[in-house]
């Protein structure tokens, strides 16, 4: 398939292997044959290539995590359903015993005096009640599919509600193993998605800045370096290119290229280097997202969740909703408030539990994104604080 097509030249940029495969010495490996980077077709090809890599990278991780949770949900359903039947049988037994006792009481009294009867019966009911309370500590809700799904999610995110907990020996052992394997997987997902979302967010933010900066007069070369560079950027791309330094040339803000740039395997140092340089240029002041915006994103996600859950759950108010969102997203997870917990539907997929799970999965990624955006500033500030307090010696991490 040696068609001499303009496309072939462009593929050499991607890697040595392809160039060599196409008949070796003709094209020097790795050297860019001055490809027509501006051609529309080339851009489309690059985009599709990155899309495929992205799909396998990010969506793959998401799919892996969701698949792991689904697998765990089925496993726990199978393990705990037997024990559940036993639980119900136990409760029924206690109830039947109480009924029998009540009957005996009623039967023995030949003449029914309300007070006497009430006294004996109330003792009996009190006992029954205490047994319910005692058993409720170990009795858990139904292990439907959605409940198991939420349970598996809470295990690997370390939230750990505990409103549903395994009671069988097998269930506990499987929980331990499941947690050991699932937690690193989820951490991988969170860091991956956090990085990706942070990159997108920075790109969007810089774009927004550019739009607002466009309105400023171009010749305003202020003292601040940032503004000068922005005005350079807002000049038409083609003419600006020879003016820009090589550093800026590498970092033309092109979000797809930035993703590609980050994925070039170059070792840890390379990775860190690119991570610190947000899209659009290295030392740009406006390219780092300020802390307030990240905090706003986090808080609004929590408030949004609070409003939604308050609508869904009948007896939650706004405080309960925000309390639930905060406690869940901080992975504390008490388990006193869980959406869909009070619904006694024995079968089928309860929507609120699935929705809750989705909310948590997305929320974790968002929080990772915010921490990603905030970390440079926060670390610098903390280091300054520590140095001023004398706790941290200069030159340390």
């Amino acid at each position: 398939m040696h068609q001499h097509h303009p496309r072939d030249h462009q593929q050499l940029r991607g890697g040595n292997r392809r160039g060599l495969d196409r008949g070796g010495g003709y094209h020097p490996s790795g050297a860019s044959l001055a490809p027509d980077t501006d051609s529309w077709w080339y851009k489309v090809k690059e985009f599709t290539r990155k899309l495929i890599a992205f799909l396998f990278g990010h969506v793959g991780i998401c799919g892996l995590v969701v698949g792991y949770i689904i697998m765990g949900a089925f496993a726990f359903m199978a393990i705990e359903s037997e024990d559940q039947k036993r639980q119900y049988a136990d409760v029924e037994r206690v109830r039947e015993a109480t009924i029998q006792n009540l009957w005996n009481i009623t039967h023995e009294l030949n003449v029914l005096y309300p007070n006497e009867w009430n006294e004996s019966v109330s003792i009996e009911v009190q006992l029954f009640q205490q047994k319910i309370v005692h058993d409720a500590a170990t009795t858990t809700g139904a292990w439907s599919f959605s409940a198991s799904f939420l349970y598996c999610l809470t295990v690997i995110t370390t939230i750990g509600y505990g409103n549903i907990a395994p009671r069988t020996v097998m269930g506990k052992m499987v929980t331990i193993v499941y947690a050991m394997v699932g937690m690193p997987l989820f951490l991988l997902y969170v860091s991956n998605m956090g990085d990706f979302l942070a990159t997108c967010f920075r790109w969007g933010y810089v774009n927004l800045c550019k739009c607002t900066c466009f309105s400023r007069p171009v010749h305003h070369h202020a003292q601040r370096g940032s503004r000068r560079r922005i005005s350079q950027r807002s000049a038409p791309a083609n003419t600006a290119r020879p003016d820009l330094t090589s550093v800026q040339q590498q970092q033309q803000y092109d979000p797809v290229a930035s993703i590609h740039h980050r994925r070039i395997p170059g070792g840890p140092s390379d990775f860190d280097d690119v991570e610190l340089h947000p899209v659009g240029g290295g030392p740009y002041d406006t390219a780092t997202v300020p802390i307030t915006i990240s905090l706003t994103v986090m808080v609004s996600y929590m408030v949004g969740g609070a409003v939604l859950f308050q609508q869904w759950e009948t007896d939650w108010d706004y405080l309960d909703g925000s309390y639930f969102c905060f406690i869940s997203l901080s992975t504390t997870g008490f388990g006193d408030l869980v959406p869909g917990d009070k619904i006694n539907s024995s079968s089928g997929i309860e929507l609120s539990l699935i929705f809750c799970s989705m909310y948590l999965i997305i929320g974790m990624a968002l929080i990772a994104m915010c921490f990603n955006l905030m970390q440079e500033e926060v670390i610098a500030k903390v280091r300054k604080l520590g140095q001023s307090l004398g706790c941290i010696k200069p030159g340390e991490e």
Partner: protein
Amino acid sequence: MALDRKRSVRDRGSVRSRGSSSASSSDPREKLKDCCRQFVAFMFTQVGVGALVVSYAIMGAFAFMAIEGESENSENNDHVAHLRSSCLSRLWNVTDHLNVLEERKWKLDVRQVLLDHQQAMALAIKGGYDGRTNQERWTFPSALMFSLSVFTMIGFGHLVPRTQWGKIATMLYAVFGIPVYVLYFMNMGQVLASCFKWFYCKLVRCVNSAGAVDELSDDMDEESYSGLVIVPSTACLWVWLTYLAVGTIMFAEWENWEYLDACYFCVTSLCKIGMGDFVPGANLQASSNQTKLIINFVYLLVGMGIIAMCYNLMKEEILVRLQELKADLIERLQDVSGRMRR
């Protein structure tokens, strides 16, 4: 010599220079002063952070005791009493209306009454009823455990705030407590990691000196030698497993749990999952359980430190492996997509 001192100054909490007879030929008095200064700084930093964490927990315990313990017993208790009396009156009605007490019919009706009562009780229990008053529930050790579970993000959930102010206080407590905890975590992790590295080096040196490889270790200073020795991940895992085993045995004996249950509790607590179905000392009947709660508290804090240490020691290895994995994956994908395009 100056280089050695710089390096020893740079290692925070470096245990190696604490009175160890290193081969560097510095003035002994200088070394002693240096040691003392480092020791004081070490104690101040590490102990300071540890004390901060503990005092924050204690302060939180008192605050929650005041907010939740003193609050009037929620309407839950009244509600349950109301439930019981209505159940009784229904039973009486059933009994009264049947002129002839036929067993099967009577039992049918009574069964229904009890079922309703049971379900109503289940709802009340989910709302927080457990037969105790707020004072009984929120004792100091329980409140301490609760504060710990908030800022370590374990979140047992066996004891939760029910009042509005309690919930707001919990959120604020978490917002300020989690950074403190993270600080403690990272600090403890580094200290323990350097201690462990030093210990491991000593061990390796002992083993090596038994062999013939002596000139290598003589030439190098201890610090540089330890820089070369990387603690393998398996050693960290062994430490963690040992700690887990200790906890399992301890809790199984004290609480009369099964070994599996104790292991399950240790794993879920140390991994910060915190189910809350098993909490040592949760069923507070006797005061002896209060000391158990304190020991539980200490166990969890130290356990977090050990996890931080393992994380610290394994971090570089894991990061590098992850990078390699990512790079490998990307390369393969590019390869595949390149082949697909031909």
